[in-house]
């Protein structure tokens, strides 16, 4: 055995490979858009707008990524987000403070996470059915809290909503010649912070690695000494908490709540995670990939609109097509895994040549 064995460049793991593909596709698409349509795509504000509009989605998708890495699924996230928005607005409009609203948001998220986690890990019920019921419950509760659309009246919160972080050096010069700085909402900071935290959890903590092990092969994980039930429970808890936070961030972006808030957020979040390289079968995925998955999805929508397909249906048809493409891609990757098929898909320069 040679010593330099350890110093050789490793071939990419499945997680890294799928993430690389996504990031590659994103940049290719974005640069192509810049070259073809220019305009908005050339401004940094475009990127920040994408983040501003999707902060809540990014947070929700992070939670889903964790659950999906662990081999499960949570489709209640959109419903929980909507419930949080409505409850917090009603709470603040009735004299609640921002702080108690934040607590309420967290509380609702934790509540859903606990119930889902318990039913799925300890009673071993199919996650899809449980979280679908959770979604129905949350949506139903949203209208029970208030059927009428609500607008936030709390002054402090309105102040908070308006607060934007200005980044002058990424701004652009408007036609009048004055500099318009790039603007970023607070929600984006929270979202990016959460991406970093979850990245750290998945990468550096024992719990995070247990998610991967459980998703890779839960039977093996059990044999290797991982407490699978508890690990699964935590994955749903994290997803619940993040849906709560996402609700709060959503509220900071829109400032209003109605029954159809975050409609379809769960499917957008799942699509983001899948496009970001998270395998539905579990064990493979990364929140950085998910972040780029969300951006890819948004960019596609922007491109669809810019390219003249202004009819409202094109966006979700493109989303569906993208989703289908990635699901099939993953199915192919999956069925070739273990046969060395995945290795074959790695470009030559990434491979290490076994000399002995």
């Amino acid at each position, binding site marked *: 055995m040679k010593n330099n064995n350890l110093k050789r460049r490793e071939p990419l793991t499945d997680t890294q490979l799928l993430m690389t593909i996504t990031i590659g596709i994103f940049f290719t698409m974005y640069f192509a858009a810049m070259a073809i349509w220019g305009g908005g795509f050339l401004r940094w504000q475009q990127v920040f707008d994408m983040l501003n509009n999707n902060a809540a989605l990014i947070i929700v998708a992070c939670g889903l990524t964790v659950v999906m890495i662990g081999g499960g699924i949570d489709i209640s996230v959109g419903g929980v987000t909507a419930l949080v928005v409505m409850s917090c607005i009603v709470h603040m409009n009735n004299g609640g403070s921002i702080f108690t609203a934040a607590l309420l948001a967290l509380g609702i998220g934790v509540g859903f996470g606990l119930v889902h986690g318990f039913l799925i890990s300890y009673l071993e019920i199919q996650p899809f059915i449980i979280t679908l019921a959770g979604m129905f419950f949350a949506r139903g509760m949203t209208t029970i809290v208030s059927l009428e659309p609500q607008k936030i009246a709390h002054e402090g919160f309105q102040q908070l909503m308006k607060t934007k972080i200005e980044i002058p050096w990424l701004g652009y010069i408007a036609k009048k010649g004055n500099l318009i700085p790039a603007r970023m909402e607070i929600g984006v900071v929270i979202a990016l912070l959460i991406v970093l935290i979850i990245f750290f959890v998945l990468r550096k903590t024992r719990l995070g690695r247990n998610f991967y*092990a459980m998703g890779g092969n839960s039977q093996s994980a059990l044999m290797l*000494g991982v407490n699978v039930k508890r690990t699964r429970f935590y994955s749903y808890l994290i997803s619940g908490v993040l849906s709560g936070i996402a609700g709060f961030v959503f509220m900071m972006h829109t400032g209003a709540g109605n029954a159809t808030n975050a409609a379809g957020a769960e499917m957008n979040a799942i699509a983001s995670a899948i496009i970001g390289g998270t395998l539905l079968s579990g064990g493979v995925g990364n929140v950085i990939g998910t972040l780029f998955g969300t951006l890819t999805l948004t960019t596609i929508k922007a491109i669809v609109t810019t390219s003249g397909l202004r009819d409202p249906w094109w966006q979700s048809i493109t989303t569906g097509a993208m989703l289908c493409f990635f699901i099939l891609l993953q199915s192919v990757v999956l069925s070739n*895994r273990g046969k060395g098929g995945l290795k074959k898909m790695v470009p030559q320069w990434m491979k290490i040549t076994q000399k002995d």
Partner: protein
Amino acid sequence: MQNDVVLSMRGIGKSFPGVRALHNVDFTLRKGEVHALMGENGAGKSTLIKVLTGVYTKDAGTIHMDGVEGEVIIRSPQDAQQAGISTVYQEITLCPNITVAENMFIGRGKGALVKWKDMEKRAGEILQSLGIPARPKQQLGSCSLAVQQMVAIARAVDMDCKVLILDEPTSSLDDKEVAMLFSLMRDLKSRGVGIIFVTHFLEQVYAVSDRITVLRNGELVGEYEVKDLPQVELVSKMMGKELEGLSDLVRDDTPVADTSTPVYEAAGLSSAKGVNPFDFAIRKGEVNGFTGLLGSGRSESVRAIFGADRVTGGKVMIDGKSVKVGKPIDAMKQGIGYLPEDRKDDGIIADLSVRDNIILALQVEKGFFHPFSQAEAEAFADEYIKALEIKTASSDTPIKSLSGGNQQKVILARWLLTHPKYLILDEPTRGIDVGTKTEIQRLVRKLAEEGMSVTFISSEIEEMLRTCSRLIVMRDRHIVGELRGTELTQDNVMRTIAGGGD
């Protein structure tokens, strides 16, 4: 000498409802030896291993280990690990999606954070010292199966195991990989680890083991030094027959002149399940058998004939005409029936009624658009329930509530109903009571007399000799011999199975 003993199991007993799986079994493992645990199906090997690893709790007996005062209590796999007993299974019990180093360390240690650098450094050291060609940062799934197995062993070694159990580790490895594994085993031996090696491959036992313990029917046959036990004797001990005094069982029927066109003939047949290309033919009214130890390829061969596994090559002729058999339905259309070895997973449709289970194959042959009427199905079911004396409350009873023997008769009825020209029975008598066993044997002879060709597989040589007029002997996925007529003696069969060593 006694100081060398690292593990000693005495008088181990274990029963399941209706079955005595282990009775008064002793097992001794010494430091730095490879100890093969041998036995045919149902001998109690896996039960013994499971008792030792805490999957089952024993009913009787004691376990002592070197360096531990008094009895060792093992109630769970975790207890076993703590006691220094590690197991590497045939199926890899690692996670393919994470790195080699992680697989070696996950589920161990404390603290909330993973220390990647330390972990990878330590993993690298262990892998290097054991000469395992894997890199710590490599994704486990990108390693070959053999290397994965070695990583599992490395994990065990790092957990300070004194006893390493290798449960059929070589089943899915090729020759080169087996050689790698063996050199690792020898290395561990020199470090004083006691290794229990469970395998079906005789040659491998002789290549690497120091000692052999043979079990049969849940009882200890004996413990032997490898050099004192020739291969053929090992086979006879596993099969439970002494070599002397067997010649009286010689059959007197002389081989029939083989001039007729074979009902079924295959040339160079091979399948995705790793059976080597083989030639085979069977004539009208003949009962032949595939014999060999478990894992010798006997089941894989007949599965290839039926198209149960993906057929990868070879030619098939039915009644002298060339046909293509790639899927089960092709074989069925040619009048071939197949009773699978694994009744539960491949045979019965558990929740369906006895009647539906009986008519299934014939219904499929007849076609999707021509279902049997309730009355027809009822008539078929009743006919065969009566003919095979299947004990069931009614033809409406779900098959899962029948006893094993009766389930097997239902599957048999399913194929008899299709009136096949050629019927393959893979272990039709396994796990069923003696009465049913003889019934099935008699039935096979009768069917042959009526002109059906039958292939019959059983783990019990005696049964094969009673039923078959020709035996094809397999070892390590090759056909190594064909015996017929007066050659059909237990002695001969065992010598052929064992091969090489006399």
